[in-house]
């Protein structure tokens, strides 16, 4: 296990400790609980809160997006494991400004159940706690079962949109509406080339053949659509965009935001090569790209691979994308 850590047991908490020591002006642990990270900068009074939660091992997802114009709080679980309902509940309560809380998280069994319980507890405290589950991964279920799809890097667009809407002081219903509108126009899919290693396990929990690629693999190693012989960047991007555009058709003169996301072990050079291919694919069908995000936005520790997310834009969504966001891990200042 080629990791620079202290003990597998301390992996998640020491990561959070490091983050809090590095960015004390921006982030803090609520009640000194390292599993509950909230903003430490000034939050607008009466603003709808947008919060999330999920397992560790995906930095900058999840807590990396806590900050101005994005998230207000995050419940932090162990590696690839949901935080408990109690942590989520405490986080929701701590983040509420009286305008309601939108729990915006990835569609995973454990997180779903815990947020369900947490919102029930929040409800008993008369906190308006709404839930939206992100399910952007087209590889994980057919369109007619969209609600069963899991979340991948599209989460970042979801938070960007919801966070901007909340920071513009829209009421909860409108934050929900614009977020759902964004999700309707969002699709993602990825490929994995190597497995990652959960520290507690100490070895890969799945394997990918030496000259193979897992098309549509999930960010915890969930199986994808098919195993294929290694493809070129162009072939890979074509497979992903074919699938995405079959699911969400794009037509001439459409404008999209796209994210080329590295899963952790793939060099930035390769992400830019993939961007070139994606740009050319879209250009070929008359679709233009607006402010692409290229880099590591949602990872699986050292997994090699890449995912593409496409967000079909209209004026509303563009306005949300352009709105200022700044967290220790993400800023659109230079995008």
């Amino acid at each position, binding site marked *: 296990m080629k990791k620079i850590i202290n003990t597998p047991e301390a992996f998640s908490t020491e990561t959070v400790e490091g983050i809090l020591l590095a960015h004390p002006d921006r982030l803090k642990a609520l009640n000194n609980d390292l599993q509950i990270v909230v903003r430490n900068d000034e939050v607008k009074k009466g603003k709808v809160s947008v919060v999330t939660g999920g397992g560790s091992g995906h930095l900058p997802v999840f807590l990396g997006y806590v900050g101005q114009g994005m998230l207000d709080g995050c419940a932090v679980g162990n590696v*690839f494991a*949901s*935080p*408990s309902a*109690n942590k989520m509940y405490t986080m929701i309560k701590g983040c509420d400004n009286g305008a309601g809380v939108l729990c915006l998280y990835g569609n995973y069994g*454990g997180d779903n159940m815990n947020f369900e*319980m947490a919102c029930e507890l929040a409800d008993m405290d008369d906190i308006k706690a709404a839930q939206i589950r992100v399910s952007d991964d087209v590889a994980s279920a057919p369109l007619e079962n969209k609600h069963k799809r899991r979340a991948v890097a599209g989460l970042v667009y979801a938070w960007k949109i919801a966070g901007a809407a909340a920071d513009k002081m829209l009421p909860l219903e409108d934050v929900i509406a614009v977020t759902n509108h964004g999700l309707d126009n969002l699709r993602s899919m990825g490929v994995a080339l190597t497995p990652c290693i959960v520290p*507690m396990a100490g070895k890969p929990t799945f394997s990918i053949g030496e000259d193979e690629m897992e098309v549509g693999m999930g960010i915890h190693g*969930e*199986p994808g659509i098919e195993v294929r012989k290694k493809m070129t960047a162009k072939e890979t991007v074509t497979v992903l965009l074919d699938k995405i555009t079959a699911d969400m058709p794009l037509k001439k003169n459409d404008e999209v935001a796209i994210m080329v996301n590295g899963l952790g072990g793939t060099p930035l050079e390769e992400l830019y090569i993939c961007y070139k291919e994606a740009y050319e694919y879209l250009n070929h069908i008359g679709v233009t790209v607006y402010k692409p995000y290229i880099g590591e936005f949602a990872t699986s520790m050292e997994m090699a691979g890449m995912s593409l997310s496409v967000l079909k834009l209209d004026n509303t969504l563009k306005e949300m994308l352009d709105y200022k966001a700044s967290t220790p891990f993400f800023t659109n200042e230079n995008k």
Partner: protein
Amino acid sequence: MKSFNLAQVKEIFKEISRVMDENKDYLVELDSKAGDGDLGISMSSGFRAVLVSEAMEETSLKKFFMKAGMTINEASPSSLGTILFIAILGGAKAIGDKEELTVKDSGEFFTACVKAVMGKTGSKRGEKTILDSVIPAADVLLLSEDDLEVAFPNALAAAEQGMQATVKMQAVHGRAAYYAEKSIGNIDGGAVVGMLIFKAICDYLSK
């Protein structure tokens, strides 16, 4: 024996913890086939945590269960940890102020557990989950007129059968669902956990 009291239930949790520890590697192996391989680890740490938690100080059965459930939710960071939390909370509500659990009470407890999970997560029997071993066992208890020492081994037998039946099922919940048809052919780890809980109770009873 006709019923369990709080002290005995606490002892049973010790048995469950021991059994989960013993089966840790086996559960990891099963969960690795169509999941993330953490099931043994999370079950082991979840039940261990109960034994050193504030739950052990509680003096009412209902409160004990509630605290135990929350402790498992915290200490067992995986889906089944949450499902056990939902289940135990449901069971705790159902027993109300009872301080002794007969066979029938136990049957009602487990049935309430199952209903809570079904209500919150939308799962049902036949979907390759822990429910497939717990539901038949709970049914045995509900209908039994016997003492604990007779009823629980019967329930365990039903749990084992239910567990075996998951081999042929296709998963529709949790990570295993992503494997679709590929999930068929292996026993469900959660169903094994359900069976092991009954095994632990039987172990306790036969001591």
